[in-house]
């Protein structure tokens, strides 16, 4: 289980997350709607992150060993080919040669990248880069998977595969933390959702319970009510008026 206890992160004095506590359990996909990056990738200003009961800072290396991470921006070494990049990640993660070769070959085939494995990443489309990131995150069979906008750039078929994959990974007792701005996808994929507003948690429950509690039919409406202060329709009208003036 991944657990955040009173975590705050401030940038130049401005709180991105403020005294946030929640947990993500194995077997469920936890949706996270808010600023991210405080789960071990950058140091928290205060508070602690626990994985399986132990603070991750106690042995950050062991934590990273069990973590699979898909960042929002697909920053990759574009001079390498897709295959070379994955081999390098396997070596950095200490995956045995035989296991890495088998998994890389399989992932490249299943993500339909096998034909382009010797092509430099610089020639890849955004969707192909995203598939490389996903493959790199899953290569070492992690127990905790952090997905930050993982559907970005994927074609419809690949997006459907990824949606099933996330649920399949959760079913295999992995801890999956899924951050996205696509509320419909979050609603379909996640069993629980954590919503942050102004750095503080405003909701942390299963989507069904939130729907029932707030008597609202969709996650989008729940999110709008909890975390959107502006009158979105009025602002959009104002923008349209402004460009016509």
């Amino acid at each position, binding site marked *: 289980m991944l657990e955040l206890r009173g975590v705050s992160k401030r940038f130049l004095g401005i709180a991105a997350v403020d005294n946030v506590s929640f947990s993500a359990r194995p077997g469920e996909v936890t949706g996270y709607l808010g600023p991210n990056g405080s789960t071990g990738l950058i140091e928290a200003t205060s508070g602690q992150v626990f994985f399986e009961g132990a603070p991750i800072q106690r042995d950050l*290396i062991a*934590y990273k060993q069990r973590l699979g991470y898909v960042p929002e921006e697909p920053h990759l070494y*574009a001079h*390498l080919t897709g*295959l070379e990049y994955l081999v390098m990640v396997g070596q*950095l993660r200490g995956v045995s040669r035989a296991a890495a070769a088998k998994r890389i070959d399989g992932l490249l085939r299943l993500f339909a990248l096998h034909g382009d494995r*010797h092509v430099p990443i610089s020639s890849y489309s955004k969707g192909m880069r995203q598939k490389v990131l996903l493959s790199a995150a899953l290569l070492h069979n992690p127990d905790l998977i952090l997905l930050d906008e993982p559907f970005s750039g994927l074609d419809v078929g690949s997006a459907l595969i990824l949606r099933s994959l996330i649920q399949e990974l959760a079913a295999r007792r992995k801890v999956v933390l899924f951050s996205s701005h696509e509320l419909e996808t979050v609603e379909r994929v996640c069993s629980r959702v954590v919503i942050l507003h102004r750095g503080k948690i405003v909701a942390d429950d299963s989507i069904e319970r939130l729907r029932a509690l707030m008597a609202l039919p969709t996650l989008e409406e729940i999110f709008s009510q909890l975390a959107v202060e502006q009158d979105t329709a009025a602002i959009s009208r104002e923008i349209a008026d402004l460009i016509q003036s």
Partner: protein
Amino acid sequence: MAKLQFRVLYREFLFRMVDLELLSVQGDMNKLLGQFAAVLVLVSIGQALHVVSVLDSASHMPRAELLIRAWPVEHSLVTMTMLVVGLFAVLSWDSIFPSRRDVLVLAPLPIRARTFFLAKVAASATALSVTVAALNALPGFVLPVALAPPDNGGLLNLILSLVSLRSFAAHWITVLAAGAFVFCCVLGVQGLAAQLLPRRRFLRVSAFLQMAAFSLFLSLYLLEPSMTTPKALAAPENQRLLACLPSYWFLGLFQLLNGSMHPALAPPAHRALGGLAVAVFAAATAFLLSYFRTLRRIVEEPDILPGARRASWLPRFGRPLETAVVQFSIRMLLRSRQHRVILAFYWGIGFAIVILLAKTRFAQQAPQVNVSMLVSSIVMLCVAVLGTRVVFSMPLELRANWIFRMAPVRGGPEFLAATRRSLFVLAVIPVWAASATLFLSVWPWRSAIGHLIVLGLLAIIFADLCLLGFRKIPFTCSYLPGKSYAHMAIWAFVVLQILLSIGAEYERRALENPAAYVALLFILCAAACGIRWRASALANKPESELQFDEEPAPALQGLGLRRDGILPLS
């Protein structure tokens, strides 16, 4: 609108000599440019001293003789200008023509291709002029004064005399024309290749052309024969060679403009004018065509050709982490043109020293163990290690380094070992293997093996010295210009050269005396162990975490507000 766009683009192109993504958080582009200018001015001072030393002793001569005496001086100024402009053209290879980034960023904007083109031309011309001006800043004033006939009216009269002013104009027009000729030749060749080849093929060929141009400029500078006497210039056997050496064309052009034409220099002068016209026309045509014909192709075609599987295979280099870092380093270095050029610059310096040594003695002494060859191999080792260490510090795709930050590795010692191995694979082994081939083929095997052992130990010492306090994975840490003191490195290298000569002389004697040789090995082994111990101790310190930014972001971040950031009071 177009004028404003021109100004904005001009500024953008002019200051994008170095990819800004390389820079550290605290990186200051001005420091880097300042350092570059300092190196040029240092060369300029050296050139001015050379002018004074040669022409001062000839000041009593009749003017006709003095002008002939000045040929080698003017020729060396022209040659140096052509070399520096050539290297500048090689370094700015990618920024001369529109890049994919330029097109992707600017294509959606309402900018005419003409404005884009003119801004690029103006930026290149400015950079070129500033380079030539910095290089000739001192000799460009000293030479005309030295060439003027003696005047009793004082220094000011001498400086302002018509003869001096004409020499002054002749010199500056000559060096600018020589620089423009070299730059236009590079542009012409690059533009022609861009027009004739498909874009992706061109990009691959372009990398080879760049290295070929670099080698050509350096070889011409170092190997060009000296023919700066009337007799040598008039000799029939030299005429074919003179027709191929542009530096002599521009020496002729200087005499033509200076009004001091010697009959032997008339044909080269005409070649200079013809060559310049052809180069400018070819460059202008290629440049225009590339802007108006290939812009669309840049967007439509990806920049890199798929590689063949066999070409990408690399052996294992020990444990998985070491293998990952070494393979990563090799691939990055082989595929990044910018890093290759910088490394080639260091190798070029090494070859220059070796060629100078070869010109002096070692060709005659090659069959025997001699100091020149010993120094040559050690110098090549030093520049290869130093150059590789420098390019390791320069990042590539900096934002992609998150994968190393995420790696479950404790850092310090493991990565130091991996980086050391990369340095050995990329710098030490090639030089050592080339030295082994050379020495085993020309020297008695005992002496050759004796020196190769010494060279191996020196490699260990020098590689570990270079990695003292180095807490980075190659190509993954941001770069902070202004830390290398490149202008001071020249003097350090001169001192090192003297020390190397003394050390090599000691080694030569030791190779003939077993007891002295054992003592030498003992000293080197002790030094190697000491430095290795020091490097490991530094890497094992708890605070020596891996570094991904040359200078981390400060705890207090200044907002850099200036006048326009002042809040209005009312």
